[in-house]
């Protein structure tokens, strides 16, 4: 199977890279071992919320210098300030073309609402979701919050209390109708996605409209958990036109309907551009000639290898098994690239689960061009992108999605310029 570029890993980074390359004339294949972490998305993409030393960041563009000083191997440090700005400026349009509508500005973080009702800084938020300009204020004074009766992955009480603390009045309404009750017959499967599937059907969506309408309120906005718009376009517009009010979504616990939708849209965009997406396959080994990887073998394809000019490794961190931790080491299982980690296991952890954990910052070593390194030797045609990279703590610094998107775009451009 001959391709220009093989991308291993079909999450945010892999898809962004694939779409960009495909758009610019390359023939790419994405091999993904199962679905990606986008399925647990908060509905927002973070660029940079905190510096490694914990300093909060409001304006990411202004702190790249400081970041570089604190973490010289941070992916953003490798990009450098100019490229960081240039790449992050084009993301909103890029995603829109790929079917993912987001709002946000890399020069200034905005705030998103968490499933607990608190506000958290972020860069881009799916356009259906609540966006706040200020850290301590919602854009509305009066909100009607709707939840589905019996839906356990959305915590209306938390949200109401937090909203009231922010000075916004919030009234809870519960929705239930026969189709929803049908779901409830199953003790576990009343999950966000299953509810969303109901609302992909016209008759249920109309039930929702009726439920939203029955409540006479003078609220400015109706807020729902993110349980609509899985495979149907413009659901919110449909609702808004019928109830004559603004309607917004708040994230739920996983699975994340907006995240899945984004994943599906991007995969479709990639495939529309002619890319090949292979799900549920695992790369097993690679043949090298000199410092290049020339053939890659996978579980499903057995003796028929992938042959390509470039390999992009976007396999994610521990969750996606891009990195594997065993009692005495952390390694990269696909190409056996060099990994930055601490040898002594005791130092991997802090006993406070909310403190920065050393293990969170382990990752695959690369040169400044994001090329992978094997036993100290930089590989010519292997690029590494996304959360598998060394030098940053995605959770503590709030930069996971940013690193994925920007490293993917950078590497795609780099491959094209070869």
């Amino acid at each position, binding site marked *: 199977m001959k391709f220009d570029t093989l991308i291993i890993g079909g999450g945010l980074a892999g898809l962004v890279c694939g779409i960009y390359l495909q758009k610019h004339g390359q023939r790419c294949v994405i091999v993904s071992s199962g679905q990606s972490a986008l399925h647990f998305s908060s509905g927002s993409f973070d660029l940079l919320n905190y510096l490694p030393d914990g300093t909060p960041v409001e304006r990411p563009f202004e702190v790249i210098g400081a970041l570089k000083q604190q973490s010289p191997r941070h992916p953003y440090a490798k990009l450098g300030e100019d490229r960081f700005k240039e790449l992050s400026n084009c993301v909103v349009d890029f995603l829109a073309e790929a079917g993912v509508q987001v709002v946000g500005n890399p020069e200034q973080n905005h705030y998103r609402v968490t499933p607990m009702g608190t506000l958290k800084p972020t860069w881009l938020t799916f356009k259906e979701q609540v966006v706040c300009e200020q850290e301590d204020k919602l854009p509305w004074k009066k909100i009607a919050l709707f939840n589905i009766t019996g839906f356990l992955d959305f915590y209306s009480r938390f949200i109401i209390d937090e909203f009231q603390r922010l000075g916004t009045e919030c009234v809870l309404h519960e929705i239930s109708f026969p189709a929803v009750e049908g779901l409830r017959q199953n003790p576990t499967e009343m999950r966000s996605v299953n509810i969303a599937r109901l609302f992909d059907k016209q008759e249920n969506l109309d039930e929702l409209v009726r439920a939203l309408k029955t409540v006479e309120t003078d609220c400015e906005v109706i807020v729902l958990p993110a349980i609509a718009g899985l495979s149907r376009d413009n659901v919110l517009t449909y609702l808004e036109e019928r109830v004559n009010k603004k309607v917004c979504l708040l994230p739920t616990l996983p699975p994340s309907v907006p995240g*899945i939708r984004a994943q599906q849209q991007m995969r479709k965009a990639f495939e529309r551009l002619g890319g090949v997406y292979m799900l549920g396959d695992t790369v097993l080994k690679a043949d090298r000639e000199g410092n290049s990887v020339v053939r890659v073998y*996978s579980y499903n394809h057995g003796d028929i290898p992938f042959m390509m000019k470039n390999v992009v490794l976007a396999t994610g961190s521990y*969750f996606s098994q891009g990195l594997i931790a065993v009692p005495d080491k952390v390694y990269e299982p696909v190409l056996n690239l060099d990994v930055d980690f601490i040898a002594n296991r005791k130092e991997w952890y802090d006993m406070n689960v909310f403190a920065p954990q050393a293990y969170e910052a382990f990752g695959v070593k690369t040169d400044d061009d994001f090329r992978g390194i094997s036993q100290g030797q930089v590989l010519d045609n292997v690029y590494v992108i996304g959360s598998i990279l060394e030098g940053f703590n995605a959770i503590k610094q709030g930069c996971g999605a940013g690193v994925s998107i920007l490293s993917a775009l950078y590497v795609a451009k780099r491959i094209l310029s070869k």
Partner: protein
Amino acid sequence: MNLQEHNISDNNFEQCIKCTVCTVYCPVAAVNPAFPGPKQAGPDGERLRLKKNNFYDETLKYCLNCKRCEVACPSNVKIGDIIQSARIKYSEKKPKLRDFMLANTDLVGSLSTPFAPVVNAVLGLKPTKAVLDGVLKIDHRRTFPKYAFGTFESWYKKEAKKQASFPRQVSYFHGCYVNYNNPQLGKDLVKVMNALGIGVQLLKKEKCCGVALISNGFINQAKKQAEININSIRESVNQNNLPVIATSSTCTFTIRDEYPHLLGIDNADVRDQVELSTRYIYRLLMQEDIKLKFNGKKIKVAYHTPCHMEKLGWAYYSIELLKLIPNVELTVLDSQCCGIAGTYGFKKENYKTSQDIGESLFRQIEACDIDYVVTDCETCKWQIEMSTSKSCEHPISILAKALE
């Protein structure tokens, strides 16, 4: 310390980290609330069943074994295998007569083909359907695949000599469907292979792959048939040096993966030599300087990826072969389950689930302007032809039609 370095449990069930991705892609849970869903029925349930077997729940029978949960799982958990193994291990329900009839495609087929016109006519009759529905609980709305008048094997007997004359040979596992219902597909395969300069042999002894036996709980019989098949395959591969190709994605998947995973039959020595014809042909065309000659007729097709094809990851080969046809207009449908899952959709209790699962696929198909839906699975074909206005063919048949 190398302790715990490879702590992979059976079917990877402990690798499950409860991320819920499988629940998103389960076609059954989406339409049938009686099914506990792949996470509960699979790894979560397995943990409870290991505690005590009374945690086994008969609702696991609603799993249609599409393995889409496995394809989606980011942790490589063999969710479908866990569920099917649990059914094998714990189910105390005795299969019904109906299940016996549905499962024994081989037996029923060999009884029917000699009388195909009569059987087909009778199976189409309302009173027959009423009996099937009322007594056997085979849903009356279900259309039966027609039986062919004369089997593929009997046709092949006359062909054997010609096939032997080719310098290169492969063995063909035709499966029950080609033998009893659609011998034309077998003939098409022979035509395509011959066009590539390859003769087609049959296995010394071929039994139904057993997929329906497994899903209906006839495990011992499935094991017996599997042993016979694997022995024939061994003889072909190891003694005669002939790889084995098949046209059915489900037979192929069953022989390669379900034999070792569910039936405990070791096929490691021959597994890699059993594959789908489209993959075999793809490799051949990539590696050697052989070209197929086409007639250049215009054809519009939409490819449907059967569940087991999705699991094998081999839709790529069928699609790439279809792309070789000049003047082909190819649409690739979203990969989703058609709902039939072999004998599953025939059962009265599953009919609604089955049709509900397929609904969005049917809609997508109806919206296409095409001559054929193309797919590698015979039961998908039945389902699509019954539930849409389009006819459905195997990629090999499409290829055969397009050859000069």
